[in-house]
Each structure stands twice: as C-alpha cells, then as structure tokens.
C-alpha cells in the first residue's frame, strides 16, 4: 500500500459515514429533515473539534462564528441580488462568511487565547453576548430587525431554484463541509501543527520549553475552526432559512451542543464528531418524540453519565480497545 493512501486511510470511515447518512436521507421517505439536522450537528462538531478537541480550550462563544457567517451570506445576497452574478453570488456570500468569521476569530483569538482554561471560557462567553448586543444596540446590519432576504434570493436565482437551494442544496452542502473539516483534522493530526497542539493540550508550559510557539498554533486552529463555522452558518442558517435575527444566531445553546458533541465523540479524534453528532442528534430527536417536553430533563443526566464514564468519548474508548490491532490504522 503506498504511503499517501496509508496516510489518508482513516478518512474512509468518516467519508463512508457521511455517504451513508446522505443515502438514508435521499431514500427514506420523510427523513430528510432529520438527516439534515444530524448532518448539521456532525458538521458543527467536526469544525469545533478542530479547535476544542485539538487544543483543549473550550470556546463558549463559538456560535458567534456561525452567526457572523450567517450574516456574511445574508449581507451578500441582500445587497447584490440584482447584479446578475448567478451562482457567483453564493461564492461571494461564502467568501464573506469565511472572511468575517476569520476576522472575528483573529480579533478574539489575539486577545482571549492569551488566557487559559476557565478564564478563556469566560472571556469567550462575553464575545458571543457582546457581539449580539453590538449588532442590536449599534443597529449594525439592520440591528434587531435582522435581515430577511427571501425576496432577494428569489430575484437572484428565480423562485424555483431559490426554493431548491434552501430546502435541498443548503443541507447537501453540509455533506461537503463536514468531510472537508474531517480532512483538515487529519492533515492537522499528521503534521507538525497536530503535534504542537497535542503538546499544548497536555502541558502548555512544557510545550513552550520545547520551542513551540503556542499562541501561533492555537490561533491557527482557532481560525481554521472558526472559518468552517462561518461556512456552516452561511449554508445551513442563511441559505436554509433566508433570514437572520441576532438572538437566533448568537444563541449560546448551540455552543453547548457543540461542546457535548465533541465530548461524546471524543475530543481530538477524527471519527469523534460524526459519532458524537449522531448520538446527540438521534437521542435529541427521538427523546422529543417519545417524551415531548421532558427530553432535556432526561438528556442531561444521560450526558453526565456518559461523560463521567467515558471521559475520552466513544471514539477515545474505541481507540484504546483497538490499540495494537489492524484497526488502529483506521480508527483515529
């Protein structure tokens, strides 16, 4: 087996997982919404894992990157829908989403990433809330009235395509973004960035002594993770809903969900986010069906139990099990 194949072998279970998920959604009557939700959770987990899983830092303001990504796409479509850009408009929207998420992460990271542990977490809560109130208070991007761009989307792409775009392609895009995030995770894991981040996660001071510029590597992980979040916001919030309101996109509950997904799956593992995303999404969905209204009450203790019993997450435990066997090369 040649080396490149060997190197990227662990991607196959991830790709197979997303492909299977897509097939199920395509072929099972009435399950597309569920599958889209699962894909969303997996994608967010995959993107968040690149930062939280790799560095061990918990960013409670993570949803802000999805939020500004949503705004990026919304602004692009509402401003330039009549320019006859065609699909180029989507590219511009996506680039704006990435650009805005990157800028925000650079600004936040340059300051907050000098803090550690709980201090970093607390500082980032402020970022999310602060950004929301900035938009509302300063009437930035239409303030609390938000941006509704359903009409502009219709102008730009025609009613039929706009409809397919938000009900189908916005979800399908996740099946590209999530594997892309997984691919980046593997690139990280296999390169000096990954080793630097492993060192930082276990002992930041020792990492510095080893010659690792810890701030630089943390910021790299932060920016990459944030720009992926921006892309997810742009497609599965902006394109899908065709509107954006500050309280919807800067809701801390999404951050909490992302943290749970990463922990359930196994922080810093390649397979973790898809496993965690599926466990979380499915149990949330079916608990809501079986015991409507009580799902959170039951869900919380289940999560606590899982995290206490398996602090390394499902994939973390699995990885230990397969150590020394042939599976070791695939389950990463």
């Amino acid at each position, binding site marked *: 087996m040649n080396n490149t194949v060997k190197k990227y072998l662990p991607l196959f279970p991830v790709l197979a997982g997303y492909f299977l998920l897509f097939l199920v959604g395509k072929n099972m009557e009435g399950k597309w919404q569920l599958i889209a939700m699962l894909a969303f959770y997996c994608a967010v987990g995959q993107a968040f894992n690149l930062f939280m899983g790799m560095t061990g830092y918990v960013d409670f303001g993570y949803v802000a990157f999805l939020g500004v990504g949503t705004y990026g796409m919304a602004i692009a479509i509402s401003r330039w829908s009549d320019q006859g850009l065609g699909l180029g408009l989507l590219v511009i929207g996506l680039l704006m989403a990435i650009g805005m998420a990157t800028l925000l992460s650079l600004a936040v990271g340059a300051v907050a990433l000098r803090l550690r542990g709980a201090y970093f977490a607390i500082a980032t809560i402020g970022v999310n809330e602060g950004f929301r109130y900035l938009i509302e208070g300063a009437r930035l991007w239409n303030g609390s009235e938000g941006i509704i761009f359903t009409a502009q989307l219709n102008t730009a792409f025609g009613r039929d395509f706009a409809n397919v775009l938000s009900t189908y392609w916005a979800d399908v895009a996740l099946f590209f973004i999530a594997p892309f995030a997984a691919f980046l995770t593997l690139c990280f894991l296999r390169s000096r960035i990954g*080793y630097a981040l*492993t060192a930082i996660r276990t002992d930041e001071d020792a*990492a*510095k*002594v*080893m*010659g690792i510029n810890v701030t630089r590597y943390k910021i790299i992980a932060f920016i990459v993770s944030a720009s992926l979040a921006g892309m997810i916001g742009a497609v599965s919030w902006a394109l899908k809903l065709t509107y954006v309101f500050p309280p919807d996109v800067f809701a801390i509950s999404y951050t909490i969900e992302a943290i749970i997904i990463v922990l359930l799956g196994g922080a810093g593992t390649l397979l973790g986010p898809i496993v965690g995303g599926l466990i979380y999404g499915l149990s949330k969905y079916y608990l809501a069906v079986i015991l409507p209204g009580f799902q959170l009450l039951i869900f919380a203790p289940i999560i606590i139990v899982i995290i206490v019993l398996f602090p390394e997450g499902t994939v973390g435990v699995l990885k230990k099990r397969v150590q020394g066997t042939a599976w070791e090369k695939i389950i990463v």
Partner: protein
Amino acid sequence: MSERMPLLKLENVTKRFGGLVAVDGVSLEVRHGEVIAIVGPNGAGKTTLFNVINGVVFPDGGKIYFEGKDITTLPVYKRAPLGIGRTFQIPRPFGSASVRENIAIGGMFGTQGHMMSVDQSMEMADRYIGLIGLKGHSDKPAGSLTPTEKKLVEIARALAMKPKLLLMDEAMAGMNPKDIDRMVQLIKEIRDTEKLAIVAMVEHIMRAVAGLAERVMVMHQGAKLVDEPTMEALSDPRVIEVYLGHPPEGHLADR
C-alpha cells in the same frame, strides 16, 4: 563561531519574588561541551536560575548571553531553536502521545526543526529510543510509563531537540543507586556522542556529581558560593559547612 566565546554567559543575574531574592547576582560561564553541576540545598535558587536561563521567567537584573547573543528577554519558545534544551525535575512528557511521538516533537521544534519532516523526526525518535533503552515501549502512551522511564523519555525528547546546552533538572532525584549509576553512564554517553554542554542540577546525590561533572557551582541562599573543579568544590570547607552540614565520619569517603 569562535571557540573562545562561552556558550552561555550569565552576568550578575538577579531574580526577586517580592521581597525574596531567589537568585542574587549570579555570574556563570559555560563552555561548549562542558558538564557542570549546580548543587545547593532546597531553596538555594537552583530552579529559579534554570528558569531564568530557560526563559520561563525573566531576570530583574543582569544579562544572559547565548553564543554571544543577548537572550535576557527572549521568549521561552524562541530559546529551544537556538539550542537550549531542558528536562524537568518531575518529568512532564506529553502523556497522551506515544513515547515515539514525544521524542519526535522534540525533533520537530528544536534546532533542526525547520528542516525536518514529521517522518524524519519519527526516524530520529527511534534512534533515541534505542539510546535510552526503551525499544519495546515506542508505541505506549508516555503517561503509562514508570517515573524512571518518563525521565528517560524526557531526556531523549530534549536530546532530539539537538541542543547545544542541556539543562537537566534533578535527573536522578528519587532513583535507587543502581538507576543513578545507569543514568550517570547515560549522561556521559550523551556528552561524548552528542557534543553538547550539560548543566545538571543536583540537590543531594553527591555520587552523581562526583561521577559526572567537571565543574561544580554551589549555590546558597540565591548567591554563588563556589565555582570550582568538582573535587575542590566538594572538599571546600565552606561547601561542607553550608551545604553538607557536618557529615558523619567516612561519609565523603565513599563518593
């Protein structure tokens, strides 16, 4: 590079923590390839001196030169690429990473780091695993090793950085005499094959000092007490008085 220029030079280095003067005007020169022991009782300022050389803390006064370059306020992570490696008193390997990965990380970010790929670092790690005699443990997570093995991994990790100066913080504390002799042997081997200077910090284990160092600097209450060739230093009456106290008959004889 001139051979006469000292590898490391401390000029009147002082470090205070509030009212406590942890390092008090210490000057020291380390030449290429030299092995120096810094000894002194607990609280003498050895660790702080190491932290100052290493850049973990910056001195309040004095200058530090490495190969003639002023590094007094150079950030800690920029010192490893210059050639300053370090091991800790309580070993701090990256527990979740394997032994091989731990050592390879040293290679990736050390003096040769910029021209080494991940694969090359792994190959180099294997060589050092051989040197420290942990061949069977390459793929084990470093966190699962015994304390002595962790210490060995840490030494190998520091060596993989290809340093010109290796700071060893209590490499032999808590070891039995047999392990100490083995460690001394290893350090000698390192000195001869790796061509680096070693500054080792030692609290009580005099047999290690005698077997290893060419020169001894004794610290007492933050200041330098003596800086002499090993035998003279260990028999210096001032050292015996402040550091060794009053040894029973024959105590020094068995070193």
